[in-house]
C-alpha cells in the first residue's frame, strides 16, 4: 500500500522535506508510522522528540491508534499557531 505524508512548519524545516510517498508492505497504525519514520537516521529523530507533535489522517486530526489504509494522506505538524 502507498500513503502520502506531509510535513509542516518547524517540522518541515527540520526534515528539509515537505512531503513524500511511502510504499508499505503491511498495514500499520499512525503511531507505528511515526516510530518507523523517527527511526530513520539523521534529522528524523525529531519525529520522536518534538513536544506535542500533532498528526492528521485525510485532513482530520488523528491519534496514534488510527489505522492507515492505501491512499491515505497523513500529515505531521507542530501545534497550530494561527489567528
Amino acid at each position, binding site marked *: 500500500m502507498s500513503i502520502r505524508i506531509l510535513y*509542516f512548519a*518547524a517540522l518541515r*524545516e527540520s526534515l528539509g522535506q515537505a512531503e513524500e510517498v511511502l510504499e508499505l508492505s503491511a498495514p500499520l497504525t499512525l503511531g507505528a508510522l511515526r516510530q518507523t519514520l523517527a527511526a530513520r537516521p539523521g534529522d528524523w529523530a525529531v519525529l520522536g522528540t518534538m513536544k*506535542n507533535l500533532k498528526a492528521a489522517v485525510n*485532513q482530520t*486530526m488523528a491519534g496514534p491508534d488510527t489505522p492507515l489504509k492505501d491512499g491515505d494522506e497523513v500529515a505531521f505538524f*507542530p501545534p*497550530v*499557531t*494561527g489567528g
Partner: protein
Amino acid sequence: MDEIAIQTEDFDTGAELSRLAKGSDCGAVASFVGHVRQGAEGVQAMTLEHYPGMTEKSLKEIIAQARERWPLKGVRVIHRIGRLLPGEQIVLVAVAAGHRGEAFAACEFIMDWLKTKAPFWKKEETTEGGRWVDARESDDAAAARWQQ
C-alpha cells in the same frame, strides 16, 4: 450564508461587514480582526503557512459547531497567508445574528477554536533571525472553555 477565504491579499473589513449585514436579515454583526504585533521581541515580519485543504475543512467544521450552539444568519472568515508586516491585518471573523448576544459569543468561539484547531503556523522574523511561534497554553484554555 457562510464564506471562508484563505488569501495572501489584504481585506477591507468595513466592506466585508456591510456585505455580511446586507446579505442577511440580522440585528447584529460582531467581528474580530487580528493584526501582526511588533511586540517586545521587535518582530520585523511574520510568515504564515497553512495546510491547504485541511484548513478549509477545519474552518467549515468550526463554523458548523458554532451554528449548532447559536442561531446565526451568516459567518465570514478570512485568514491571510504569506509574509505580513507589523500592523497588517491577519484574520477577520465576522458573525451576523438576530441579536448581539449570539453574535458576540459565536465570534469569540470561532476565533478561540480557529487558534487551536485550524492548521496555520506563524514564523516571526526578528533581528535575531527566524523563529516559529510556540503554541500558548492560554489559547488551549480559551478553546476548552467552550467544551463544558
